[in-house]
């Protein structure tokens, strides 16, 4: 009888340890961007390629595991969506630094030229999630960020929640 709580505690620890191994963030950024495009109202945007990583952003393609970039093509709006996964933490550090630079340069350009776009830009930011780095500048940035965050390992987190739920139910089960 006294052993039951100890056994249950041991099971919970094992379950949590198992969950943490699969708690690595992962998302197919091409798919994420495709999902985002369903929400984006700007119809004058274009995808950029790997050839644009270094000249436009100073990002070494050797640091990038996967990416998707979608940018306003008219020259008159600040809409720019950059989704990247670094190959490792150090790569992600470098990518984040480059995107922060890009963000600041956008602010400099827009502040005096396109005040409404600047106001929109100020509500957006560069975000880092593990080895993922994103800059989502869009009037629909809240919806797009939700798509992005939902895409970052929803399955692992749900599995962990299920593990915890099962552990709680075992704990609550009356002793035979």
């Amino acid at each position, binding site marked *: 009888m006294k052993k039951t709580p100890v056994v249950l505690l041991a099971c919970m620890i094992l379950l949590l340890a198992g969950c943490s191994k699969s708690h690595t963030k992962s998302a197919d950024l091409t798919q994420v961007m495709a999902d985002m495009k369903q929400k984006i109202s700007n119809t004058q945007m274009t995808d950029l390629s790997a050839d644009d990583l270094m000249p436009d952003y100073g990002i070494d393609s050797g640091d990038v595991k996967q990416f998707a970039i979608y940018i306003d093509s008219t020259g008159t709006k600040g809409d720019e969506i950059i989704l990247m996964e670094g190959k490792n933490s150090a790569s992600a550090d470098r990518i984040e630094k480059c995107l922060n630079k890009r963000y600041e340069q956008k602010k*400099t350009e827009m502040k005096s*030229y396109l*005040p409404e776009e600047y106001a929109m830009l100020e509500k957006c930011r560069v975000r880092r999630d593990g080895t993922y780095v994103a800059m989502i500048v869009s009037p629909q940035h809240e919806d797009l960020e939700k798509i992005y965050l939902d895409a970052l390992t929803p399955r692992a987190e749900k599995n962990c929640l299920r593990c915890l739920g099962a552990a709680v139910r075992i704990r609550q089960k009356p002793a035979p």
Partner: protein
Amino acid sequence: MKRNRYAKLAAFGIAAAVFSACLGFENPAATTAVIAGEVGEPASAPSARPAVQVCSAAPSSSSEIPWQACVSETQEADPSFLDDAVFVGDSVTLKLKYYAAARRKKDPSFLGKAKFLAAGSMGSGNALQPVSAQSIHPLYNGKKAPLEDSAAKMGAKKIYIMLGINDIALYGIDRSAKNLEKLALRFLKVCPDEELFIQSATPMVREKQLKSLNNKNIAAYDKELLDICQKRKWNYLDVASVMQGSDGALKPEYCSDPGILGIHFTDTACNVWVRYILTHTGKETGG
């Protein structure tokens, strides 16, 4: 007596303030929202004026140098002519940049391997400012640098410059043209063997003309650029000539923002622009 002295001091102070404001064209703080600042100040009557073909007019300066600045039309060159070209400009050029990126997905040879140095609010005035965290100089390979240095790093042998829209209201026609001349000389100082193509600023739709930024002033600015090119023996590309209608305004079908600023291009306009560039290479055989 005291009243006279104070009056003289006040007059002197006002004169000093006016004088320093006139020198403000190189003051970074003066780089403000040229176009945005003019919103709400439309021209009293949108000017409808016949189109001006800058290159068909004689140069205003009397010179013994033969007429050569205006690049004649030739056979269309192969896009590879632009492999070593860098396009320097503002938001109008930014549109060309992203249009080229989109076209190159299906046609990698579109515009050759031309590169771009463009920023939305760029003008020759703010391009002449020192590089800083707040300066407008576009990043290249993650670094901010003077345009001429970035172009050199890009391996530019041909520089196509289109600036002025963000200068005219701020600095006036004459000073804007002189700033562009100064900027162009900086490119040649860094790379003396670069070939310069000074592109005219392009017109705006008739209804969106403003008090200072309007087609009459743009045409006057372009005329000054032509005179500079004539004097310096630089190539002058009258891009405006293929963008304007009979009234001198940007053709409606070429304008992507007729309800906003009325100066930016559609994809169709970009095609016309690219064709103009490739048929005005300065080479008889088209490169």
